[in-house]
């Protein structure tokens, strides 16, 4: 008998799971409340890294990097993937934190090293080497353009027979201690498994199922400048100020400040953010001072307890969590989706042991 799965949320997490489930024989529907790209997956900066402190999370990231390569050709969609490195820069105050985590990462098999400001300048000549004192360099990291990732996954899903419903908000329906499906208006869409991949909205979905989740919600603001010829290769994150910049394939400088915890979901942009961001960027890259900001926006994401994603079965039979990816979902969710498909179809997955709800 074919296993029927309903996925709530058309972001990178939900679509990755749907893709791998369908590829291995499940009958899958994905429900997105608005348009694809409405969630964090359509609003992020596309930085891909494995520079984390948790070994299992690092494994997900390394596997996701492989998947980005294979999926683009498997699906036939260009993700605008650039593997030109991911650099974390820092001042003296947090230098030790950076050194510490690099040791963890090396042990987990990440091709990462501590470098000095001159090295970073050799990667990006316009950076002000006096604006930081140390850096960690992950040569295999890089950037994707998140939109084609979402569109490509959706295309791959559809070609495998997945139904992707946009503008279709749903709620989860439970009977006794078992999931029966999702509700669309008055209609019940039956499923053996319901996957909660609703990002910042996951707490609410979980509540409907009677399952406690308590992910933290963050809001992050971001903006782009007018286009420049390609010249900033790596993704740069300043861990001292949380400001990050990279250059998209369209030539825009994409940058923002890591998100803050919030208790309500809103995606309003602020001038406060722009001025803070601008101050640090002109210090870091003085030559950008004349560039204009063309657009700004914000996104929301959810982070699981202990700062890790929440993936796997719950006390309600068939109700599965796939959320809590925090600021790292682009880097880790493809492999999480793959592992979850394996868990649902084969009954086990070693890596998911570490992210149990």
């Amino acid at each position, binding site marked *: 008998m074919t296993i029927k799965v309903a996925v709530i949320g058309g972001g990178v997490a939900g679509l990755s799971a749907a893709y791998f489930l369908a590829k291995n024989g499940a009958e899958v529907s994905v429900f997105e409340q608005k348009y*694809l790209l409405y969630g964090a997956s359509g609003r992020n900066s596309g930085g891909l890294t494995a520079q984390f402190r948790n070994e299992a999370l690092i494994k997900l990231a390394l596997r996701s990097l492989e998947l980005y390569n294979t999926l683009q050709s498997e699906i036939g969609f260009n993700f605008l993937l650039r593997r030109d490195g991911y650099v974390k820069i820092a001042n003296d105050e947090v230098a030790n934190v950076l050194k510490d985590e690099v040791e963890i990462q090396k042990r987990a098999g990440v091709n990462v090293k501590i470098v000095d400001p001159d090295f970073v300048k050799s990667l990006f000549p316009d950076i002000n080497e006096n604006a930081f004192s140390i850096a960690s360099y992950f040569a295999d990291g890089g950037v994707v353009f998140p939109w084609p990732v979402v569109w490509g996954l959706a295309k791959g899903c*559809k070609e495998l027979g997945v139904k992707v419903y946009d503008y279709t908000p749903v709620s989860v329906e439970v009977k006794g201690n078992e999931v029966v499906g999702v509700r669309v208006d008055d209609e019940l869409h039956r499923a053996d498994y319901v996957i909660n991949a609703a990002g910042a909205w996951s707490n609410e979905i979980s509540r409907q199922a009677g399952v406690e989740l308590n992910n933290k919600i963050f809001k992050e603001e971001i903006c782009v400048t007018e286009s420049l010829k390609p010249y900033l290769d790596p993704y740069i994150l300043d861990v001292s100020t949380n400001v990050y910049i990279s250059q998209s394939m369209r030539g825009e400088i994409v940058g923002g400040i890591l998100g803050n915890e919030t208790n309500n979901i809103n995606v309003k942009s602020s001038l406060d953010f*722009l*001025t803070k961001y601008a101050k640090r960027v002109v210090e870091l890259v003085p030559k950008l001072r004349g560039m204009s900001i063309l657009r700004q926006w914000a996104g929301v994401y959810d982070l699981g307890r202990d700062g890790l994603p929440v993936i796997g079965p719950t006390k309600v039979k068939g109700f599965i969590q796939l959320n809590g990816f925090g600021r790292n979902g682009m880097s880790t969710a493809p492999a999480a989706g793959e592992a979850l498909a394996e868990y649902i179809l084969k009954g086990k997955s070693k890596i998911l042991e570490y992210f149990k709800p």
Partner: protein
Amino acid sequence: MKDRKVVCRCEDLTEEEIIHAIELGYDDLESLKRFTGATTGPCQGKGCLMHLLRILSQKTGKSVDEIGVTTQRQPVNPVPLYILAAAEKGDGE
């Protein structure tokens, strides 16, 4: 050569290209804008949004009201970084 009917001058997009995208399934305004790049050029859609609405309405049979107009992302007039950097403080949010 066929007439090139340009609907978005900033991003150099023809009516045909817009229709092609709609046929690929990018058939709501938000997806269409992002997939084609229409309305994301220097004029931020002042020159082409109405054309997009008209074509979408013709292709999908939905009224312009049903399609809805999307939020304009700030800032409307480009502001250089050094001016922002010199600002005392922001909007205090």
